[in-house]
């Protein structure tokens, strides 16, 4: 893909290690603005590590990460977020002891205008009426599906330019998985760039504009969804 697009998320030749062993090796990819770009890969292929690298939670030891022209590598996580990025983390990671509304407010933590925060709350509650009903309930007492809504709503509260989504379907019932993918598609319609990391090949490719396949810490294939679904790398990455 075109890596010269100024508003894209560009990851160039990054390697990331926990302790000494490299989990990611020389990974390059681009998430084009306003599109859904997906990263497919089986368990342990390094997908979550890539998200953590972008966020600065596990900084890469070499390579370049750029978003809207800003060099993100080496920045502490809150500065990465300040670049207009939000994350819907793997496993939802809601604050169990916070109410639904406190969770949502955490999503807009860097927004200083209270009026703006209230406006975003209204938008999220309109999109998820269920959360509005439960706004004072502790998030830890919600069902898995409701927690997924909190996690997504929290990401939207950031009003991000780029949304990183890590395995939204993990641990959810099939009907909720489908619902989640529909939501992600609707988020893209708001012009938000989405980088989606998933194991679930078919549903992910169905909503993506472009995809990459990660296997053992390396990008082994990329292309348009229609082409990607036919490649042997996709099958090998999962079954090989």
């Amino acid at each position: 893909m075109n890596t010269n697009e100024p508003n894209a998320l560009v990851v160039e030749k990054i390697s990331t290690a926990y302790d000494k062993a490299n989990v990611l090796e020389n990974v390059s990819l681009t998430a084009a603005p306003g599109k859904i770009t997906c990263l497919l890969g089986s368990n342990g292929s390094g997908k979550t590590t890539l998200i953590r690298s972008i966020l600065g939670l596990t900084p890469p030891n070499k390579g370049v990460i750029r978003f809207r022209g800003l060099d993100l590598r080496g920045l502490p996580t809150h500065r990465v977020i300040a670049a207009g990025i939000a994350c819907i983390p793997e496993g939802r990671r809601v604050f169990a002891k916070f109410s639904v509304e406190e969770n949502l407010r955490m999503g807009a933590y860097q927004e200083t205008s209270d009026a703006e925060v209230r406006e975003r709350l209204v938008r999220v509650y309109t999109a998820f009426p269920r959360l509005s009903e439960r706004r004072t309930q502790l998030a830890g007492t919600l069902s898995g599906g409701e927690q997924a809504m909190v996690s997504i709503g929290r990401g939207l509260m950031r009003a991000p330019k780029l949304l990183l989504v890590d395995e939204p379907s993990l641990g959810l019932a099939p009907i909720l998985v489908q619902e989640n993918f529909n939501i992600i598609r609707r988020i893209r319609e708001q012009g938000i760039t989405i980088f989606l990391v998933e194991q679930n090949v078919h549903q992910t490719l169905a909503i993506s504009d472009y995809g990459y396949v990660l296997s053992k810490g390396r990008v082994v294939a990329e292309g348009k969804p229609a082409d990607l679904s036919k490649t042997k790398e996709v099958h090998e990455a999962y079954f090989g």
Partner: protein
Amino acid sequence: MDFGLFAQHTMNGLMLGMMYALVAVGFTLFFGVLDVIKFSHGDVLTVGAFTALATFVGLKSMGVASTTVELLAMLIAAIGAMAVLGAVIAKAFVLPLRAAPALNTLLITLMLGTVLREAVRLFYPDGANPKPFPRLLPAESVSIGNFNLRLDNTIMLAAGVLVIVGLQLMLNRTKLGLAIRAVAQDEETAKTMGVNFSAIVLITFAIGSALAAFAGLMNGLYYNEINFGIGLYLGVVGFSAAIIGGLGSIYGAILGGFMFAALQTIGAVALPFASAYKDVFAFAVVIVLMAWRPTGLIPEKLSERV
């Protein structure tokens, strides 16, 4: 026991409990945001008390006579200086050790506490001996039977309640409080929401240390004497109080502080041995409590790890 004596002991217990609770809250805050035990906390209290005393001596030598001015200046100097000291300790000794085992933090702050304590002993003029602490609050009292309700103690108790209520409001009603609680629950997700983790840690250590300074000043005003060892004792008691309350829980720390004071008071008054054994009794009960409820009375963080 007649009412007067009972009320007197209760008042004394409440004063002690307030000091213990203020120290325990610090331990629990630090553990909340960073999962570390900072053993220099008690000695920060000592330095705070001596900062207040030095401020008083300084003002006296400058000819300031107003007790209100003196008291305010001591409060501001002790709280301000200890807030800075707490943040510096976090920045220099605690945050850099994040990747190391928690035991290292415990050890390094234990040594740091010794350095602070010894520095007071060696460098404060005649610091090895107990220093008289000025009586600055109005000392009027009301007698109800045998009970002598002193105005200064009432003021200190009320101030302590205000501080704790203020802390609660800050934690529960402000954005800073939201961030502190978020970091305490899930550091990584808090970062992902855009919270400046290091800044929140430094602020939390500043707040906890300011509370210790407040407790140190209270200690001085209550006993009218301080020495370089007060923090060591109050640190151990505050730590025990935080543990029996359930480390990580603010309410638990407060409860633990007052409970420890209650045990001491009972040990000194109601039990058939000399009052010198009050600490033996109180700590013995703490040990039993810990064996019975290893995660504390109001378990917060430890239970989540199971």
